[in-house]
């Protein structure tokens, strides 16, 4: 089992892990020949939220070499905090004087590889950088990992979802986050509704308070349905006014919103009364550099 790669885009990788760190302490990373998958599917997650993401190797790594007995795939379980600690010191502060955003050393190169230290499997990060004064500095991080057995890897499956009722392009996640943070103290359940005429609603409704926030003129991308018949006469065009809605836990929605650090475009898919799927694109949508997929199961409200 061998793995070695140079990390070209440390900041993006750092932001991806930062997004999922809020969900789970540990996450699963699966390296394949072409992609890197970040998976958080713990049952203990708030509101049952899960993350399944696929990122193209080329958008993050250079000189990528992987070799293993299970189809050249390696799946590891590690602590998000530890990985972030290693990546934080690798990312250059890029001109800002904010000490929390990366190191004050100029990073020249970051190499990550699978290694074994004292009988413990680790992901070894070797960072070469330059100090303020222009001298060389070398930093090594060892992140403890647990390599998953092929049997366990086979059990990893994305949740089954029906065809979504509607897709909607979300407005800036930052703005949504500000609003949902206010809603959090008032209710546990959030209703997410969208209609084909570009209307997006986030509302709460409790005994004491009812709050509705509405965005108009959102883009409704027409997603090609797999195997869908080209004959649109089969289905009636959906009522543009009809709001498809799903109820989710406010806290899990907020956890998803922590990915605002990495998202450029986000598409929300509402599967009425079943779940909410959110595709957070990393980088340009057209490039398809990577997607973080959040699955939030619906709360069935019998009222």
């Amino acid at each position, binding site marked *: 089992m061998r793995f070695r790669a140079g990390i070209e885009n440390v900041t993006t990788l750092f932001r991806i892990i930062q997004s999922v760190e809020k969900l789970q302490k540990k996450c699963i990373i699966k390296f394949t020949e072409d992609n890197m998958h970040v998976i958080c599917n713990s049952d203990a997650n708030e509101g049952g939220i899960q993350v399944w993401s696929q990122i193209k190797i080329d958008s993050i790594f250079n000189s990528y070499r992987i070799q293993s007995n299970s189809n050249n795939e390696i799946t590891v379980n590690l602590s998000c905090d530890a990985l972030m600690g290693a990546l934080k010191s690798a990312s250059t502060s890029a001109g800002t004087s904010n000490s929390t955003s990366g190191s004050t050393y100029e990073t020249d190169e970051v190499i990550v590889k699978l290694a074994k*230290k004292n009988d413990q499997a680790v992901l070894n990060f070797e960072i070469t950088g330059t100090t303020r004064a222009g001298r060389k500095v070398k930093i090594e991080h060892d992140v403890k990992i647990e390599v998953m057995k092929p049997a366990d890897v086979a059990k990893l499956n994305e949740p089954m979802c029906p065809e979504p009722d509607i897709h909607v392009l979300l407005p800036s996640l930052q703005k949504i986050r500000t609003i949902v943070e206010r809603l959090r103290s008032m209710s546990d359940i959030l209703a997410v509704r969208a209609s084909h005429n570009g209307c997006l609603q986030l509302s709460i409704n409790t005994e004491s308070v009812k709050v509705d926030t509405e965005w108009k003129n959102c883009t409704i991308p027409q997603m090609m349905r797999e195997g869908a018949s080209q004959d649109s006469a089969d289905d009636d065009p959906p009522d543009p006014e009809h709001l498809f809605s799903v109820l989710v836990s406010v806290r899990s929605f907020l956890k998803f919103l922590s990915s605002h650090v990495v998202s450029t475009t986000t598409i929300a898919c509402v599967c009425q009364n079943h779940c909410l799927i959110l595709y957070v694109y990393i980088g340009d949508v057209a490039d398809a550099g990577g997607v973080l997929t959040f699955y939030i199961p619906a709360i069935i409200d019998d009222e």
Partner: protein
Amino acid sequence: MQATFDAHALKPFTRALTCLSRYGEELCIYASSETLSLFCTNSSKSAYCRFKFNKEFFSRYRVGDPAKGTNDSAMGQLMAKSLLSILKHKTVESTLERCEISIVEGVSSEESTDETQDGLESKLIVRLHCRHSVIKTHKLLLLGSTSLIAPGVPDSSNETLLRIGPRAIRDIIEQFSLPKGAKSDPQLIWTFAEAEVAVRSLESSIDTRGKAQLATELFISADEFDLYNLYEAPTTIAFHLREFNATIAFAELCGLGLDIRFTDPAEPLFIDVEGDNFETLFVISTSHPPNSSAQVRLAPSGPKKRLREDTPADSTRFRKPTKVVQSTTDLGQDTTPARIAASPLSMPLPQVAPTSVSQRSNFPQDQDVMTTSRLSQQKPPLFLPTPSQLSDSDKAVLRESGLGIKHTSVEGCNEMFETHGLEMNCKSIELRAAWDG
């Protein structure tokens, strides 16, 4: 004592107080005719911090009352946070014109004629003269400190001296992702070689089960240090970061470099920071690193916590932190450490190290210097015979020699030791005398 400083001096003074409050809770003030010292130690006495302001730092400085002929020094103890919260208040920074600090010694009731001197307590009075003729007066109760403490002066023959700017050292420490929080107390292990410095973490990113998930090691050129006088290469020392970070923060805010001195591992580390009309000294205890190889390890070893005074008494498992301070009666100069003293008779306090009795033939002089009062709280020494164990013949010998079992003085015992050659017995008796006395 009365000292006044203006708004310009408020910043360094407040920064000093912030740093002190990160070291320990109780702050001691000592005012002599030339300087005003603020110092404190942490609860496990493994770190010490002292700020000495020259009288030139203040616009007015007066100690003692020439009319009454009182002694020329004032002293007291108070909570660092109390003084800090007064000076750090948000309106103070923008409106302060000058600040007067005075210590009013408590007087007995018969002597007091003045209302301001009420009661037996000493008070620290902080009078803030602000804009618009606003005067805010704060009175803080000053406790008399039970013992003055000062660090030992190191033996400089094998000393390593390093000088580094605060930014450079902060850059190094920032690379380590260390657990934050009141309970965490991370350590770093530094290895100084001829031309390179290696720093590694002992533990970090602890997960819920207390096992380290991340180990980090950094290699940097010795040229990052402005001055790098290494006594012997390679030298490896380890110390906790909590207080060190407070020192670095202070130095960075004031834009001052740090002079770091240390000798052997397990001898304390001294940091000097000198500024405009003030100098500071920080002493942090160090320890032998648990693993001397430079290999990075992620072994499942639990975190090594420093002993705080409130930890439970099964302290035998932990390595006790070296105490960096000792009691002294004279704060005018730092006391010499036990090791340098030529003869035991010249030492101010009996030095007792129970565990080393059998190893040393002369009076034990150990690094763990403690006052006798603290000694009584220690676990019992390993080699002390109880009265019942002292055989009858031993007791008879003692009585014959004229020494009582209880009241032997250090000097008397030593004399006896030399003249009578009663080696083992003498030591054990002497120990018990100190124990009981």
